[in-house]
């Protein structure tokens, strides 16, 4: 196990990258602490897999260093980094049995026969494949194959970290839940550093202690699930976490102060940025609908069972509000934002320190 430090890493798949847009990873500085359970969350193409492959050594970064417990491993090949990685689609060795598949990473490292047998037995039991050890791996279902792929990562007890690259894509939802819970338990038992890549916020929030959100080749926020929900550091985090995502509205300045879509905002003058593009972020849960505030036109209401999502046209802007079950929407609705739950963003980054009333 190791503390993995990523320092000033930039990566481009082009031979002669010019501007920032040529970089798949624009600049990453991050530390994965020993024994942490991390989720790396972001949309497709944000650089998650690139970052993972750079940590495991499958890809060499264009710039920057990778340190394991302070030791520079940037130039070490994958084989010598002692990292386990599980890929999106199952990789199994067709000609081997299930047990041989699990034993493969151990045998390649010259583990003693008796140890190999014992650990394979254990792993078969954990994966629920105890009766399938002698079966040929090629005939198994996609789920069982992916379990074997997971098993080949987990069976190595001495790894620095285990990296999961959207490992449950091919697994059906019920099984997904179960396997994720198992992974979580394994993490508590074995204490490996685990990094779990996903674009599914539910998966990320249920698996991890710390969620790392990536967007366009940058880490935009690291925090607990509650942090991400309550204090999105970047408009993207607000939009990506939560269902539906945060409302982001442009801010207008006039003689009377600031407003967004007609809703008056009164930030303390000290935090008011003097330049840049200003936006305000408010979660649908924190939009109040009543007879006071700025007038809005109701477009549609979606009933989601426990709550309803109302879509408004607020002076030409789209606004979502989450309403508790049974609440009424007046015929000429007006909206206000819940005090203390409104965030101000300058050029997409949160203006820290203060909350708006």
């Amino acid at each position, binding site marked *: 196990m190791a503390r993995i430090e990523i320092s000033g890493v930039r990566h481009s798949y082009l031979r002669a990258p010019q501007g920032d847009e040529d970089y798949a990873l624009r600049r990453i500085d991050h530390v994965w602490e020993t024994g942490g359970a991390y989720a790396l969350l972001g949309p497709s193409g944000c650089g998650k897999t690139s970052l993972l492959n750079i940590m495991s050594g499958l890809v060499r970064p264009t710039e920057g260093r990778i340190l394991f417990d302070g030791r520079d491993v940037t130039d070490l090949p994958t084989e010598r980094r002692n990292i386990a*990685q599980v890929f999106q689609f199952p990789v199994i060795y067709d000609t081997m049995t299930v047990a041989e598949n699990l034993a493969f990473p151990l045998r390649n490292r010259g583990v003693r026969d008796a140890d190999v047998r014992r650990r394979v037995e254990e792993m078969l039991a954990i994966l629920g494949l105890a009766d399938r050890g002698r079966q040929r791996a090629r*005939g198994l279902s996609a789920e069982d194959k992916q379990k074997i792929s997971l098993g080949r990562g987990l069976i190595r007890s001495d790894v620095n970290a285990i990296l999961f690259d959207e490992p449950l894509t091919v697994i059906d939802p019920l099984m997904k839940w179960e396997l994720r819970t198992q992974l979580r338990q394994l993490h508590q038992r074995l204490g490996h550093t685990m990094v779990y890549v996903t674009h599914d916020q539910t998966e990320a929030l249920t698996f991890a202690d710390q969620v790392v959100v990536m967007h366009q080749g940058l880490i935009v926020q690291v925090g607990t699930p509650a942090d991400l929900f309550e204090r999105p550091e970047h408009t993207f985090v607000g939009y990506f976490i939560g269902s539906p995502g945060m409302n982001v509205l442009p801010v207008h300045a006039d003689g009377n102060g600031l407003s967004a879509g007609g809703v008056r905002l009164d930030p303390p003058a000290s935090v008011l940025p003097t330049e840049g593009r200003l936006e305000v972020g408010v979660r649908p849960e924190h939009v109040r609908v009543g007879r006071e505030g700025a007038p809005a036109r109701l477009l549609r209401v979606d009933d989601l069972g426990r709550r309803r999502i109302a879509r408004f046209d607020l002076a030409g802007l789209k606004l979502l509000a989450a309403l508790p079950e049974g609440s009424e929407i007046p015929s000429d609705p007006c909206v206000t934002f819940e005090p203390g739950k409104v965030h101000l963003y300058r050029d997409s980054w949160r203006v820290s320190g203060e909350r708006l009333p």
Partner: protein
Amino acid sequence: MKPVNQKAWLLVAPVLALVAFSAVIPLMTVVNYSVQDTFGANQFFWAGTVWYEQVLASERFWNALGRNLIFSFIILLIEIPLGVFIALNMPKKGPGVAACLVLMALPLLIPWNVVGTIWQVFGRVDIGLLGSSLALAGVDYNYVQDPVDAWVTLIVMDVWHWTSLVALLAYAGLVSIPDAFYQAARIDGASGWAVFRFVQAPKMARVLTIAVLLRFMDSFMIYTEPFVVTGGGPGNSTTFLSIDLVQMAVGQFDLGPAAAMSIVYFLIILLFSWIFYAVMTRHDDDGAKGG
């Protein structure tokens, strides 16, 4: 009772007629010849199984068959590993791929008799580049007189002509392996040999079965190249079944024995085809659920 629609016969009749003219009738003619004797003038006498007994008892037939089998065995032994080796070393990306593929395909595009002529001239001691170079270097090489030299020439020629087919098939198998398999193997700490043994070889197995089948059939029926290069000699050293057959039928006009020999030759090829087919389909069943 189900009504029987006789009109269906009318619809398949053209195909039946075509197949009959192209395959069944010629084959039956040969069967017909193989059980009769003739002294010309279109007069035939029933001979029964005499010709078959004669062919199966003749040393000439067994020698030719033996040569065929040895030839096929040797070229498979060289072409399959060499083709795999070349495929493993071909570039997977970049401009080199197209260049490689074109170069590899070139020998495959040359007609058999031209290949024969190229090597016939190439190997000549008096004017051929290969033959005279070897002579200059002091190597005693003459495919017209020395049986070993004749065999070496034919084998090198076949390897030159057909290894690229094996290489291209193996390459097709290799490029179908997703990157994740190589990455996982590196994560698992697999050695280069283990990657070949457990990742590449299993994925190539299917196309290689096809390669072995094609190369075996082709080399077992080889005619044009040895006919052009050695004409079956020196002596009978490169007289394969097909060459022997043509000599017997066209050269000596022994229609009966030649026909009997054709049928036996045909049955041997049918047998090998069936064996390969059985092996391949079993492989397919096995791999149907693989991924």
